[in-house]
């Protein structure tokens, strides 16, 4: 049925998605907050940059990551100087790739949540003499929590579904970069259709369950909120 190699790929994929989601939430929260409130001239270009992974094919991302993170690339030189080695073909490299790849899926829900909240709650907090940090953590965060939930779920699910980027810069190393999607691809190409079916169907059911859960939660939240 499911081979040891398949289990390794499943575990690796879950680990990759979990770590990437964590990094994404830490990165996307301040970014979305800034995008929601800034009036700077930089706002539009940065918003566009953040959305780029939505429209670029993953092969473009994978190709540029491979070239820029490689030993001859600008970022590769930096990581070599720092003694980190080069990132392609490593788990850390995939985390970096996933964060780039799933960034819009974390930023967009948070941005909407922050925008929908409006300025009023924070102004009220300010009149009650809450510091900006205090207002953010005790007012904005609780109000925007459905946004955080959506961002986390979508980042997680989207990272699990990534393929082209991993194929371009992963190098297919078991336990390091051979994730579920590339494992399924390998099964299909070697005509191991049974194994491919088991993993593919599992992924289908998982993705459906995640999206269904998210929809039910959002619906409940809407009813409670208004």
């Amino acid at each position: 049925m499911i081979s040891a190699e398949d289990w390794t790929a499943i575990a690796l994929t879950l680990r990759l998605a979990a770590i990437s989601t964590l990094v994404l939430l830490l990165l996307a929260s301040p970014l979305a907050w800034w995008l929601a409130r800034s009036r700077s001239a930089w706002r539009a270009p940065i918003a566009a940059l953040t959305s780029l992974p939505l429209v670029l094919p993953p092969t473009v991302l994978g190709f540029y990551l491979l070239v820029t993170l490689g030993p001859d690339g600008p970022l590769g030189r930096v990581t070599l100087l720092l003694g980190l080695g080069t990132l392609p073909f490593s788990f850390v490299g995939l985390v970096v790739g996933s964060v780039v790849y799933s960034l819009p899926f974390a930023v967009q829900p948070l941005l909407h949540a922050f925008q929908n909240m409006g300025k009023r709650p924070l102004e009220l907090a300010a009149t009650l003499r809450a510091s900006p940090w205090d207002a953010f953590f005790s007012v904005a965060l609780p109000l925007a929590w459905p946004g955080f939930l959506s961002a986390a779920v979508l980042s997680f699910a989207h990272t699990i579904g990534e393929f082209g980027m991993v194929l371009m810069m992963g190098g297919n190393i078991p336990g390091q970069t051979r994730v579920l999607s590339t494992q399924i691809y390998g099964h299909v190409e070697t005509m191991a259709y049974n194994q491919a079916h088991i993993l593919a169907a599992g992924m289908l059911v998982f993705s459906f369950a995640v999206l269904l859960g998210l929809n039910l939660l959002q619906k409940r939240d809407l009813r409670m909120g208004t």
Partner: protein
Amino acid sequence: MHFVLRKWICWLGLWLSLATQSVWSAQVQVAVAANFSSTMQAIAQAFEQESGHQTRIITGATGKFYAQIKNGAPFDILLAADSQTPLLLEQEGWAVPGSRFTYAIGHLVLWSKQPGLVDAQGEVLRSTSFKRLAIADPRLAPYGAAAMQVLERMGLLAQVKDRLVQGETVGQAYQFLASGNAELGFVASSQVLADANPVTGSSWLIPESLHSPLRQDAVLLKSGQANPAATALMLFLQSPRARALIRANGYSH
């Protein structure tokens, strides 16, 4: 009224002349193994010149083509990277029996972008002077499987196992090398050699005794059976002109 009618007749004549022309010059869709794609471009150009037919080349991994052909992909010819896949397609009734032939025999090369890194005996493989060794996925690509045989016969598999990175095809293995992400790798001689010398960098042409031959077979698929351009191309691939191009690109036959 007459004017409109005349205009219509003009259009009809134009359309008819285009339609009849397309009977003379048919189009052939060829699925080509990644390692042979640049050679095939050159062959297709010569073929189009000589026959007036159009060729459309689809590049990819042989295993993927197998799955696609079994699911109705509109390819007329498969130029595989191995001899098993065409045989299998014939046995399963997807290819025209008796149409198979070996169009090229590939050669494996240990290559590096850095001049002087690879020596004439491949001793560099025993050293620690490289961090990554790129190969094509041995489950998917014959060149990858051959590379594994070489490592096994040299008794080096255990030693380099942790440094292996796999590309989907030998084309991707080359890309890992060209971008500098791997220092050393096994690729097809057609990718890096011109007249037995490396175009850039350093290389070792692997002796045939270290791996089973990389026989690449062509087969006419059922969907191309009635296509005159497809049968013409199958013949052209065995012509002296095509064979000269195949040799010039680092294959034998």
